[in-house]
C-alpha cells in the first residue's frame, strides 16, 4: 500500500500521470498468468522480458482500429454520426483516439491520415484544410503526449500527405510519430524527397517498405508505436521479447545456442505469449466488451501476438562470431540464428492469432530504457557501424526475417539537406536491398531517434532540471541514454 501512497504523494507527476502509475501498481499486485517453471525462471533472469506489460492484461498491447469504417459509420457508443465533412471527420477522430486502448494508455495508431481525410478536402479551400490539419496535430500532441502515438501516410501522393510533412517539419514535435509507406514505384519522387528532407530535420517520417509489407499483410497493415507492422482492424495482444545477448551467455558455442538454448528459450517465449493472450482474450473480457469490437472497428480475427528479439549484436560477440557489420562470420551466424528463431516460432502453438494465420508474429524489438549495453533489435551497435552502404546491406539481409516490424537508423551530416535527390537514392537503395523500415535524421537536428521513438535533445536537457515533463517518452529516453546503447551514432557521409 505504501507504493500507492508514494505515487499519490510524489511531487513530480501531474494527477493523470499519477492515475496511470496507480493503475500499473494495482495491476502489479495480481499474480502472473500461470506459466511453467522454466518460463518463469527465464522471466526472472531477464532472458525473456515482457516489457513491463503487467501480470493481468486487460487490453491488447497494440490496437489498430479501422478508422475508415469509423468515419463512414460513426459510433453508436460515442454518440457520433458518420463524418459528413472535413470538420466532423477530424472531430470524430479526435473524439475516438482517447478511447483506443494500448499498453501505454494512448493510441499507438491514429490512422492513415491521407486516406482518411483526403476524400473530405473538396469542401474546403487549401488554407482552411491546412489550418485544420495543424489544429488536429496540435490537439493530438497536447492530449496524447506520447511519442508512440503514430500516424501513417503514403504510398500515394495526396494533399494531406504533403501538408502533413510541411506541418510536422514546422511543428518540430515528437508527437505524433509518422511513417511514410514508401514504394519507389508508386510514391512520386517529389513526395519522397519532401519526406526525406523533413526526416533530416525532425527525424520523421520513417520510411516503411510498402512492397514488402503489402505482401506480408495483404489485407492491409499499419506502422504503429515503435516500428511495429500490424494488420489494420486488429493488432497485437502482447509483445514478449527474448534477450539474445543474455541467452548467448548460457551457450557453450554457436551450435549449442542453435540446437539447445534457442529451442528451449523460444518454447518458453511462446508459452508466456500464449498465456498472456489467453488471459486477455478468455478472462479479461476485452474482446467481449469493447465497443471497438462491437462496432466492428476491431476484429478479434485480425489480432496476432508478437515474439520479439533484441541484442543480436552482443549475442554474436558473446558466441565469438565477431562484429556484425565488420565480420562476415557474424552475418552468417546472424542469418542462422534468425532463421532458426523463425522456424522454432512456427513450431509453437499461436493462441488467438488468426490475424497472422495462426503463427506468432516476429518482431525485432527496438529496446527500452532499462536495456544496459544491449543493442536494440538486430541493429549494429551505435558507434560501431561500418560504412553506410555496408550497414544498409547488413540490415537488408536481416530484415526479411521479421513480419511484424524491424528497423534501422541512419544519421546524415548537413550536406544531405542540400541534396534530397541523393538522399532518396540511398533510401531507394535501402528498400531494394531488403530494408523494411528505416529512420533517418541529421546529426545537428534537435529531434532524434532514441531506440525507435522520437525525442527532443532540448527536452532531454530540460529533464535534468525539471521533472514531470508532458511527454512520458522523454523520461524513457533519458533511461535509454544512461543505458549506453543509444548515442552517438555514426554520421554519414564520413
Amino acid at each position: 500500500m505504501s507504493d500507492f501512497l508514494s505515487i499519490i504523494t510524489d511531487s513530480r507527476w501531474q494527477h493523470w500521470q499519477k492515475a496511470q502509475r496507480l493503475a500499473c501498481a494495482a495491476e502489479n499486485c495480481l499474480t502472473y498468468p500461470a506459466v511453467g517453471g522454466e518460463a518463469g525462471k527465464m522471466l526472472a533472469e531477464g532472458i525473456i522480458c515482457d516489457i513491463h506489460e503487467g501480470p493481468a492484461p486487460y487490453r491488447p498491447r497494440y490496437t489498430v482500429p479501422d478508422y475508415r469504417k469509423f468515419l463512414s459509420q460513426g459510433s453508436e457508443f460515442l454518440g457520433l454520426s458518420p463524418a459528413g465533412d472535413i470538420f466532423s471527420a477530424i472531430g470524430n477522430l479526435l473524439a475516438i483516439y482517447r478511447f483506443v486502448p494500448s499498453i501505454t494508455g494512448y493510441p499507438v495508431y491514429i490512422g492513415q491520415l491521407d486516406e482518411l481525410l483526403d476524400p473530405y478536402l473538396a469542401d474546403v479551400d487549401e488554407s482552411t484544410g491546412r489550418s485544420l490539419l495543424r489544429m488536429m496535430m496540435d490537439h493530438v500532441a497536447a492530449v496524447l503526449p506520447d511519442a508512440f502515438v503514430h500516424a501513417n501516410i503514403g504510398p500515394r501522393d495526396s494533399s494531406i500527405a504533403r501538408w502533413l510533412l510541411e506541418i510536422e517539419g514546422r511543428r518540430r514535435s515528437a508527437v505524433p510519430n509518422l511513417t511514410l509507406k514508401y514504394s519507389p514505384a508508386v510514391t512520386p519522387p517529389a513526395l519522397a524527397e519532401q519526406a526525406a528532407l523533413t526526416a533530416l530535420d525532425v527525424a520523421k517520417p520513417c520510411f516503411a517498405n510498402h512492397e514488402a509489407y503489402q505482401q506480408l499483410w495483404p489485407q492491409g497493415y499499419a506502422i504503429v508505436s515503435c516500428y511495429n507492422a500490424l494488420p489494420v482492424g486488429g493488432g497485437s495482444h502482447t509483445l514478449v521479447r527474448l534477450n539474445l545477448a543474455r541467452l548467448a551467455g548460457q551457450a557453450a558455442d554457436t551450435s549449442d545456442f542453435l540446437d539447445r538454448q534457442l529451442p528451449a528459450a523460444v518454447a518458453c517465449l511462446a508459452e508466456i505469449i500464449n498465456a498472456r493472450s489467453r488471459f486477455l482474450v478468455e478472462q479479461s473480457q476485452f474482446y467481449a466488451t469493447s465497443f471497438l469490437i462491437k462496432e466492428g472497428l476491431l476484429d478479434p480475427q485480425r489480432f496476432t501476438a508478437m515474439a520479439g528479439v533484441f541484442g543480436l549484436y552482443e549475442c554474436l560477440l558473446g558466441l565469438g562470431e565477431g562484429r556484425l557489420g565488420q565480420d562476415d562470420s557474424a552475418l552468417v551466424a546472424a542469418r542462422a540464428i534468425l532463421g532458426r528463431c523463425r522456424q522454432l516460432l512456427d513450431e509453437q502453438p499461436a493462441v488467438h492469432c488468426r490475424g497472422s494465420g495462426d503463427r506468432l508474429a516476429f518482431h525485432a524489438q527496438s529496446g527500452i530504457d532499462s536495456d544496459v549495453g544491449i543493442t536494440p533489435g538486430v541493429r549494429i551497435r551505435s558507434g560501431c557501424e561500418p560504412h553506410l552502404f555496408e550497414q544498409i546491406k547488413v540490415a537488408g539481409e536481416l530484415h526479411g526475417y521479421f513480419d511484424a516490424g524491424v528497423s534501422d537508423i541512419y544519421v546524415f551530416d548537413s550536406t544531405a539537406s542540400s541534396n534530397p535527390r541523393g538522399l532518396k537514392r540511398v533510401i531507394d537503395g535501402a528498400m531494394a536491398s531488403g530494408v523494411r523500415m528505416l529512420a533517418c535524421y541529421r546529426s545537428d537536428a534537435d529531434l532524434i531517434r532514441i531506440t525507435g521513438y522520437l525525442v527532443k535533445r532540448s527536452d532531454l536537457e530540460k529533464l535534468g532540471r525539471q521533472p514531470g515533463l508532458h511527454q512520458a517518452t522523454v523520461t524513457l529516453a533519458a533511461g535509454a541514454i544512461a543505458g549506453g546503447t543509444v548515442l552517438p551514432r555514426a554520421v554519414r557521409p564520413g
Partner: protein
Amino acid sequence: MWLLVSKIIRQSFIDGPGSRMVVFLQGCNLRCIYCHNPETRGLCSACGKCLTSCPAGALGRQELSIVWRAEMCRGCECCLGVCPESADPRAQWLPAGEIYRRFAADAAFLDGITLSGGEASRQSREWLPLAGWLHNDGKTLFVDSNGMMTAASRQEVLTAADGVLLDFKALDRRVHRALTGVDNLPVLEFMAAAAAADKLYELRTVIVPGYTDAPDSIAAMARHIACLPGRPFWRLIAFRRHGVRGDGTGLPEPGGERMEELAAVAAAVLGRGRIIVR
C-alpha cells in the same frame, strides 16, 4: 586502361546530382595558392624522401617506384609534408574496370561517379570506357574540372561526361593570375563550350578575402553566368586554411555573414535556387 587514383570516396552528396561515388585522380596542371588538397597535384618522381618520414614503415621502394602498404598505414600523412612534388605515395594505379567494379557493388545507392582531382581531364583517355559502362547501367558520369585542358580532352569530356562541375575561380584575369598563375581565357572558353553542349551542371568559386570577395566582382561573375545557356548552379565555397600549403596558409578565411552577403548578390542576378553556399 589504368588510372592514377589519389583516393575514392564511396559516397558524397556534394559532387553533382544525387548520391555519387567520387574518384579523385592524381595530378593537376594548376598550382592555386588556396589549394586544399595539394597532395593531389604532383606525380611521384620516386625520389624517396617520404620513405624515412613514415613512422609506421608503410612506405618502401620496389625497383624504380615507391610502394605504399595500406595495411600498415596509420593515416598520419607525414609523407605528404615532405614530398617535393606535391604528390601522394598512397596514390594507386587502378584499371578503369576495377573502379567500375567498386561502383557496381554499391550501385543501388548511387546515381553515378564523379571524377575529381587533381585535374580529372588529364586522364580522360583512360577513364573514357567508364562512361559507356555507367550509361549502360542508366548511371551518369560527371567530371569536376578546372577547365584547363587540351582540345582532345575537351572533346572527350564534353562527349562522354553527362555533366561538368567547373571551377570559376575568377572572372578578372589579374585575380585569376594571382590565384593560379595562369590566364582564365581557356576556362571561359571551356565554360562556354560546356554550357552550349548543355553539360555545365555547376560552377564553383572559392571565396578568398582580398581576392574574390568583392561584391562587385561577384555581381560581374553572376552576370557572366546569367548569359550562359543551361542554368548551371553556382556554389560559393568559403576558403578554409585546412590542408593548404605555402603562401595560401597566410590567407584569411571569410565569415559566415560575408558568405551570405555574397550569396545575396549572386542571387539577385541568378535567383536563390541556383546559389549554393558552403
